[in-house]
């Protein structure tokens, strides 16, 4: 049994997005003929750090990780690099650490920008907006929020965010938060959400009030959201190609672990796109919606 072993670590398997990511890592590892040690950060930087430490003791040959928090996981990743274990980061890039083998990602800030731009394109004459943010303090929530504001803040006059609340990335909360927003502010033109779950929650709230023409934007391109986009219920969702990211990262890591093949590019950035009704075929997980 001298198969190579790699660690695949994601921030939280409580979110379908990361479940998909780990599944893709698993599939690619199998395709490459290497063993995979799975790690679920359980939404805690210390848990993800501990997992890396345990993997180092077990002398894994490479690490593929989507860090929960780029700052808080930097020391653990640095430790891995020091121990001579190649590290490929996915999705979120750790800046401060020297010697990371490669990063494969689609910036959440860019994703947020894309989401807002899609909305702007749909309402060239301005719009009244709701904005549902992710879990306060969580990395993706911060970045996506930043992206949305990067686009909308300069256009304040035309695009008014009349209602901006967190719904903690959760569908049930998005539903109640949107209900309150609708009661307080009337019908908006569009609702921008930091993930698909919240978009689907907002959708239920609008449906209950028969506001079927509110354009709702999600993020992550989950199969469920893709169906809703197809059916014209959601206006769009941001695709970051997590599967492609994951597979590329595993390929790079395994190639290096096997025979020190340096990656062609140290930085693979996939541009996030907004999936609408017209470009559904670009979505990575469309095949899961059958």
């Amino acid at each position, binding site marked *: 049994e001298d198969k190579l072993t790699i660690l695949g670590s994601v921030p939280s398997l409580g979110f379908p997005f990361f*479940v998909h990511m780990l599944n893709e890592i698993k599939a690619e590892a199998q395709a490459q003929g290497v063993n995979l040690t799975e790690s679920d950060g359980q939404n805690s930087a210390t848990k993800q750090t501990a997992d890396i430490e345990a993997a180092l003791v077990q002398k894994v040959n490479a690490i593929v990780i989507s860090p929960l928090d780029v700052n808080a996981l930097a020391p653990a990743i640095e430790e891995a690099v020091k121990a001579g274990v190649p590290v490929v980061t996915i999705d979120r890039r750790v800046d401060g650490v020297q010697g990371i083998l490669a990063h494969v990602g689609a910036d959440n800030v860019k994703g947020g920008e894309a989401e807002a731009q899609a909305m702007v394109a749909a309402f060239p004459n301005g719009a009244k907006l709701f904005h549902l943010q992710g879990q306060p303090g969580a990395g993706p929530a911060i970045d996506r929020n930043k992206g949305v504001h990067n686009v909308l803040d300069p256009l304040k006059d035309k695009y008014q965010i009349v209602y901006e609340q967190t719904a903690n990335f959760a569908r049930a909360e998005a539903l*109640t938060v949107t209900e*309150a927003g609708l009661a307080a502010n009337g019908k908006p033109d569009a609702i921008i959400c930091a993930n698909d779950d919240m978009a689907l929650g907002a959708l*239920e709230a609008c449906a209950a009030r028969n506001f079927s023409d509110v354009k709702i934007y999600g993020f992550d391109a989950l199969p469920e959201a893709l169906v809703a986009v197809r059916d014209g219920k959601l206006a769009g969702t941001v695709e970051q190609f997590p599967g492609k990211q994951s597979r590329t990262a595993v390929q790079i890591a395994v190639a290096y672990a096997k025979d020190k093949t340096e990656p062609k590019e140290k930085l693979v950035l996939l541009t996030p796109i907004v999936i609408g009704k017209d470009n559904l075929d670009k979505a990575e997980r469309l095949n899961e919606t059958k």
Partner: protein
Amino acid sequence: MSIAEEQSQRGGVTIARLLMSFGPLLFLAALVVVFTVLKPSFIDPINLFNITRQISITGLIALGMTFVILTAGIDLSVGSLLAFCGMVAAVVAKGGTANTLSLSTSGTQGFGWFAALLAAVVVGALAGGVQGFAITRLKVPPFVVTLGGLTVFRGLTLTISNGGPISGFDASMRWFGTGLIGPVPVPAIIFAIAAILCHIVLRYTRYGRAVYAVGGNAEAARLSGLRVDRILVSVYVIVGFFAGLAAFVLSARLNSSEAVAGIGYELTVISAVVIGGTSLFGGIGSVGGTVVGAALIGVLQNGLQFNNVSSYTQSIVIGLILILAVAFDRWLKSRVRR
């Protein structure tokens, strides 16, 4: 003591009692007034019905939690159990774990809403019963058993659904979450009926008396011939039943059962019960109080969102008001006593 004296005293006691039980209600009324002044549309019927619908999920669980806390127990597993029951309901409703994602399923191959409801409440009650047995037989404190349950049920839920949601129920099932009877949301009606039933059970039946007695002094209850262990198991069955019912309503409402549903609900639910004046040491409390407690939390959240208060500030305000509401209640009770 003369008869006149005694009567005036009884009158005094009655007014005192009224005031006492109205502590949280006064606080709730004050909140409503404040929010209405800040933004009059707050008391639009639409918004008020929104609130009733919103509190119905945690409210249902809080009803069951009232029984548990009355026996001086606690159940931390309700949030996870809700997710678990919701997933079970979804599997039954859709006839499998295949994630048929269409949000407007009509012809399903599942077993329909009634089977889903039944499955949710039966699984909830069974899970509660298992925890009750661990508490009474293994003599492990409720806090520990249900803390274990919290992680076990979450793990089971994630395992069933492989982390993802199961979505798309038929219209008959969705009615339980989104339907209206007149202007009143169905979940609110379910909650109201459940609350009235619970009130009757606790206040007017021998079972209710036994629950209070066990919480007041378990040893004395045993020596008075009550089957303490059975009663303890029963309250966990009840809270499990309500977690199942709440799960069904939530799934119907969201048109989806999620593996991450209900995270942190245990604290909201316990807050509702405690704000309502039920003592964590058992033996004291009422369903009416719990309803008021749940309403208070619902009004607070809705009102702050209504005024678009930043979520950071919301956390701070909600935490402080929670403490103040209970402090006010204590203060009122201590005034009335002297």
